[in-house]
């Protein structure tokens, strides 16, 4: 009986499916002159919402967009450019007004961006850039990562003081933003070391920390074995810095090794307050989300806006953390 019922349902549904395909409700055309506010949808494919940094971008973007009359669809690409390309396909099928991406791969996302270009949908990038040839980006908002890397280098020199020492870099090379940070960091160290015999700050190793707490922990633990006299670690973001701190604690070297992070996420700031991390060049993800929506609004309005906007970082030390009302 049950089976028979399923069968009937199946047939009815199949019939509905096919007839449905043909009927195009042809309502008489009504000129819709100047409909009020609905400004369409913004599709946002985040790099990974597991990292609070991108969650803040997503939240601030959503809040600002709602305020301006947009709807928002947020998708989590989980660092997979294949997944992100599917999101872009879906956004195109949903006919969104604008697409915002944190490209999961600065080159491979190009094909998806070109599809959006061909569909006439503007693509904005946020934090991470797209460098694929022929892919048109309507606007970018990001952090000045090179400047941030320089600040991190200055913080490291300050932390190690007159003695100087060997430094480990916990990298995430896949992200161009991190490549810029390490470039800035190395540049400051190089100019510090120039013509100096002692108190030099040298990069002893550059390891892949994946920008993740567990990968950062493993890489730092290995480096502590290889370089017994390590004096500092620069981690390209807060999760990998916190992973490194766990490794320092296990090796009982929290006094010997100074940590410099990047981002200024709430856990990072908390760790700075507790003295685990010496300092962070902090980024302003909450500004990014707001600015990108403002730029989308201006684009759709036909107004001018800066197509490549880099927000500078600020160095955040323990003294700043003690005054920070956001921390307990």
């Amino acid at each position, binding site marked *: 009986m049950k*089976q*028979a019922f*399923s*069968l009937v349902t*199946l047939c009815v*549904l199949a019939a*509905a*499916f096919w007839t*449905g*395909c043909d009927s*195009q*409700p042809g*309502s*008489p*055309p*009504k*000129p*819709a*002159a*100047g*409909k*009020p506010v609905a*400004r369409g949808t913004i599709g946002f494919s985040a790099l990974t*919402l597991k990292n609070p940094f991108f969650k803040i971008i997503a939240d601030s973007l959503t809040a600002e967009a709602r305020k301006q009359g947009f709807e928002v669809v947020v*998708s*989590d690409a989980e660092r*997979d*450019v*294949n*997944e992100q*390309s*599917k999101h872009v*396909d*879906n956004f*195109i*099928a*949903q*006919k969104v*007004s604008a697409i915002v991406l944190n490209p999961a*791969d*600065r*080159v*491979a996302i*190009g*094909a998806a961006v070109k599809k959006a270009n*061909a*569909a*006439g949908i*503007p693509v904005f990038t946020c934090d991470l850039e797209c460098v*694929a040839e022929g892919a048109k980006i*309507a606007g970018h908002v990001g952090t000045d990562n090179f400047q941030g890397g320089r600040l991190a280098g200055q913080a490291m020199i300050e932390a190690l003081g007159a003695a100087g020492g060997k430094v480990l870099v916990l990298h995430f*090379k*896949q992200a161009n933003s991190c*490549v810029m940070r390490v470039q800035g960091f190395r540049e400051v160290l190089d100019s510090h070391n120039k013509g100096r015999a002692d108190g030099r700050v040298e990069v002893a190793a*550059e390891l892949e920390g994946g920008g993740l707490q567990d990968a950062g922990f493993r890489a730092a633990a290995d480096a502590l074995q290889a370089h017994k006299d390590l004096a500092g670690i620069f981690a390209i973001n807060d999760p990998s810095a916190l992973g490194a701190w766990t490794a320092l604690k296990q090796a009982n070297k929290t006094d010997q090794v100074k940590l410099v992070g990047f981002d200024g996420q709430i856990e990072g700031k908390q760790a700075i307050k507790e003295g685990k991390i010496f300092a962070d060049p902090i980024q302003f993800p909450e500004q990014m989300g707001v600015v990108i929506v403002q730029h989308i609004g201006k*684009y*759709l*309005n*036909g*107004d001018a806006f800066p197509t490549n906007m880099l927000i500078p970082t600020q160095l955040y030390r323990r003294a700043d953390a003690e005054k920070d009302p956001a921390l307990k």
Partner: protein
Amino acid sequence: MKSSWHNRLLTEHGSLLVLLLLCIYYSVVTWSEQHPITPRSGRQLARAIATAPGAHVLIAIRPTAQDRIFASALREELVARGASVIEPVLEGAPTDVRATLEELGRAGQRVDAIATHQPISEWGPLQPDSLAALAAQFPSLKDMRVHRPASHHWPNFLTRENLLNVINQNADIAIIAIGMTLVIIAGGIDLSVGSLLALSSVSAAVVIHHWAGGAQASVVGLVGCGLLAILIGAAGGAFSGVMVTRFGVPAFVVTLGVMMVARGGALIVAVQHQRALSGGATEGTPEAVKVAAPAFGALGNGAMLGIPNPVWLMAALYVLAHVVMTRTTLGRRIYAVGGNPEAARLSGVPVRAVLVGVFALCGALAGLAGLVDASRFEGGRPNAGELYELQVIAAVVVGGTSLAGGQGRIFGTLVGALIIAVIQNGLNMAGVKSYEQKVVFGLIILAAVLLDRWKKHRGAGAA
């Protein structure tokens, strides 16, 4: 008799039923307003505007192929109905719309109507406040009104574009799933497919870049590199097959090893390539290996008769695999090897050769999927195909192939792959986060396995 037919439909085609129900469910959930941009909607719009002959109409579109087709139908119909179309057609971004309107106003050109479509009608320059400001500033624009085609309601899920998306996005998984179905029917399993995909896509990209002429690579060269990608996958699969048959190592463990070796290999090749590009100055990053040859994108991003090439490829392979499995000795042998290897051996089936062949074929299809991936993303990605093995196995299991071996159907796997694809797409369209999607996937796989057990149980009861 009749009731057993019903039973067969439910047990044999239960997955098809699930697929249909899913499609219907998502059609209902994504029911929403549609704004057509087609020649037909363009002509309809023209008929609505051109009620007063001699009206001055400005057509505004975006610089896309679809919009141009819409605009040319619209203009043709407007001219035929005696409207005066302002030349040229306004084509561009919102800022161009604003600039053009101001220009027309300054030139004193009368504009009675702007004919456009829904996306542009929501741009700032065409909003009531902007129009009022223009009317106040330029007398020739004071009667200007915005017209757009009528909308209708239809599920977002059930549009041609979206359905093709669903299949196209998952064509690579569906292609590998053919190989996996054969491996599982033959009593094995292959965890290395995702990594083999990455290794062959990166290798093909590197060979194209360094030896086939890079951006100037000829089609023959590209095809050669494509064959190389498939060969690399086949070699990886054949290696697993040999390890399983010669040394009796469980397929699970062998392919787990190959999975790690191939992934590492793909990353090494990519990093070495980047290093070579920079002249050995830097250590290199595991970025995608770019393929600049324009013809290379045809496989992954091209289309024939409006249907994307990966979909054609997938369909052809499924038909071929179906014929092999149902009409040929090879097909019967694969079932025999998985059903009872000892009996198969005694009846003269070359069990080892069949197993090695099946693993090689699975690897070759992974290599082919790698080629599709590289073509789609215009470069070989060392991180491509991560966790594909699990998605592929899920598609096979949901499609009704028994993990115990000896049973399964090729088209069942296609349905399984589509179920997973539809769930993912539908949840994306409905705005469900990927975390919930994982839960749904897991539950579907569990349900498929339970259905398999239930079928076996019933089969045993009937006999």
